[in-house]
């Protein structure tokens, strides 16, 4: 086993880890599969990985405990959580509280998996670069600094609470950079409900991969930024101001905001 591998996949279902190994292996990534978090921790003592894919609901140690162990041991490995649609709340929690970089809802296709792995690897690289020039490793400062009064969901999306009770939603600079050039956005229409942690828009990158953008706040869409739809590069240039995506009427801001970081 080489000292640095690409992926560590942790899931108590061998069929899931088996499928992930097959997909990543075919793409030429080096990958190790384990069926419990404790096994993963033992594995990390011997080798290091550029990225971990970890299930949340597992038998001995669950995904959260695994993330805590990593923080305790000082292992700075980006982790993508895998979770069923039924535990989306957990996914949001894992992004905010315990420092996972992203999550992928199960079940997923090979392409969805690869898109998220590539994006997360790139995101991690960008964070490393930022850290090397003395910027904080929380995604708030990279090429375009995030304004301080914006709430962020992981490295994915942001919320600005407006005075009249509405909220503006957008996608973060780091997410766009990690997605490597956006060709276009697919947005929902006003009147539709959006839910925290559930994709509310899709960014298509130049290589054709589809990046689902998780909504940072639940509510009803009031308005969308047609400029963002027609000029995708505007969002990349100015993601926090002119590149906003939706204005929504939050349905449950108090409880939603606790999972977001300022």
């Amino acid at each position, binding site marked *: 086993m080489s000292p640095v591998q690409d992926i560590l996949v942790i*899931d108590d*279902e061998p*069929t*899931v880890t*088996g*499928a*992930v190994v*097959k*997909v990543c292996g*075919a793409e030429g990534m080096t990958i190790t599969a384990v069926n419990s978090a404790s096994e993963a921790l033992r594995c990390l003592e011997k080798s290091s990985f550029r990225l971990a894919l970890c299930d949340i*609901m597992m038998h001995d140690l669950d995904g959260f405990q695994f993330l805590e162990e990593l923080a305790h041991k000082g292992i700075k490995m980006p982790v993508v959580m*895998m979770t*069923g*649609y*039924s*535990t989306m709340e957990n996914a949001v929690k894992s992004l905010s509280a315990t420092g996972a970089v992203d999550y992928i809802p*199960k*079940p*997923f*296709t*090979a*392409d969805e*998996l690869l898109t998220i792995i590539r994006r997360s690897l790139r995101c991690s690289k960008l964070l490393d670069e930022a850290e090397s020039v003395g910027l904080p490793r929380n995604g708030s400062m990279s090429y375009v600094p995030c304004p301080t009064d914006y709430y962020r969901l992981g490295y994915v999306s942001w919320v600005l609470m407006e005075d009249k009770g509405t909220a503006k939603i957008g996608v973060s600079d780091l997410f766009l950079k990690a997605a490597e050039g956006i060709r276009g956005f697919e947005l*929902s*229409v006003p*009147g*539709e*409900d*959006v*839910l925290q942690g*559930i994709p509310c828009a899709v960014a298509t990158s130049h290589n054709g991969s589809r990046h689902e953008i998780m909504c940072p706040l639940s509510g009803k869409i*009031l308005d969308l930024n047609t400029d963002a739809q027609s000029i995708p590069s505007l969002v990349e240039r100015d993601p926090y101001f002119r590149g906003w995506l939706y204005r929504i*009427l939050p349905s449950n801001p108090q409880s939603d905001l606790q999972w977001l970081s300022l």
Partner: protein
Amino acid sequence: MLNNKIGFRLTFGVVLTVLLAIGVFAYFNIQSEKKSLLTEVERHANQLSEAVKSDTEYDMLHNDRERIHESIRRIGRQDSIDRVRVFNKSGEIIYSSDSAEIGTMVDKKAESCYRCHSAGKPLERLEKQERTRVFRPHRDSSRLLGIINPIYNSQSCWTAACHAHPKTQTVLGVLDVTIPLTEVDRNILNSRVAIVVLAVSVILILSLIVGFMVRWWIDRPVQELLTATRHVAGGELGYRIKVTRDDELGMLARSFNNMTDKLAEARLQLFQSDKLASLGRLAAGVAHEINNPLTAVLTNSSYLLKRSQGQAEMRDDLQVIVSETIRCREIVKSLLDFARQTVLKKRKADINEIIGRAATVIENQLALGRVKLVMELDTALPRATVDANQIQQVFINLMVNASDAIGENSGTIKITSSAISLRPTGVLQIKRALCPKRHDLVDRKIRIDGKPAISMRFRKKKHTGLIHLNPMYGVDEHRLSDMPALGEGVQLLCPDCSASLIAEGELCPDCGSPVYAFEVPLRGLVQGCLREACGWQRWEQVDSAWNDEYVEVRVIDDGCGIPKTQIPKLFEPFATTKGQKGTGLGLAVTWGIVDNHNGTISVESEVGVGTSFVIRIPVGA
């Protein structure tokens, strides 16, 4: 048993009272009748006695004893007279209609003497009313009335030629006439019998009438109430009392119906939320369990699909596996969405195209069941903003149901689509209603027709209460309980902060009453009138901007049909008519999806003829 019945008790009580009243009345009536008859007889006896006295006076003065004897005998022979006799002061009978007793002495203790001789010294004057006496000579004989008439001394007596009486004597003798009371007694008896007969018949008739009225007005409605209570207690909450009256029992029946309505609704809500909670748990559990195998299938199949470049046939098959697994993923999601009543992914879509896709999905199933699918689609259908996956699910569910209803036989499923126009009233549901201080008036605990109602508090002096408005715009079926009409001194308040909900300076254009107003976030003010039989409501922003375009889709089958009793339960989770075949989730999910699209779904069905589901979805959503 019988005496436990309120009707019997009431009748018994009334009859007892009447019995007592008529009894007392009859008693006094008989008494007075008796008295007046007796008085009449007394008067008659007095006259008779006076007539005898004056008739014989002349002969007395001339001491013509033979004539006197003759007169007395003649008078005594009359039928209405028992006996006439005259006795002197010492009690010797001098004249008598019964000649046998002439010359005999009368005992001073005898009934005819007793009146004067009872007090030791004989009385010298006797008042008229004291002269009569009623007696029975023997125990078995009929009653007699005796009248004694004292013959007082007078100047003509002591100056008469015979000089039979000295001047000092006051009373010369006594004329005693006895009259039989047989006739009178018979009359008294007759009238007593008549009164008793009358009283008994009055009591009988009265108790019949009272009994009938009690039965009609009390017993029957009470029995109906009782039956209804038993039915309701037995769980039959749909049981209704027919209210045909306006009295207190009618009101009771009405409030009973009202109560069971609320009870049924509460139970339904409880049932629904209970089911939804267990459905949520079930769905979460299923989703979690199914996600791992689905992940393996989806990842592997999509992986194979990526690697199968150039193998067209295999690619197609793999594409089916991938897309159907993705559909499974969407179903699991929508199941969870339904349990959480959440998010839709709406896009402009062609409903006809969605119907076509749904038909393709279940075509195999239909072919096996020898079911013919007929589509009559309106090609000019406007594109609607819908979640295509979910709406496809709706059509698949309905077509599967239709095919199940047709069963083993051959049959036809017809799907039609058309564009229709609907006014917002009765279609649009107010889902949020804000008071001036922005509290939501929509109360999820109170439901009208299954939809959360809009609650307000009214206050008039110390009288206060909650009212609940129907959230369907323009539908005037509110629950106003005992709210007084809006006007002077009546306040309408937000239940949370007591901010006034009465629109200042606005009056109902139909009836001129004050109106209420609340805000629907982003959709402007809703105003309305609370006066009964008016029901005016205005939602300017919606009225002016209303897109009345709807797409109507009908899924019609000629299968077995749904019994009427099952229809109200049709859209509840776990209500299945298919026995082991169904989960009972299909139509609940269907309803949830249509409702999330602000659409409506209704069903018409006849057993043995077929079923028709009508879905209406707003084009603009």
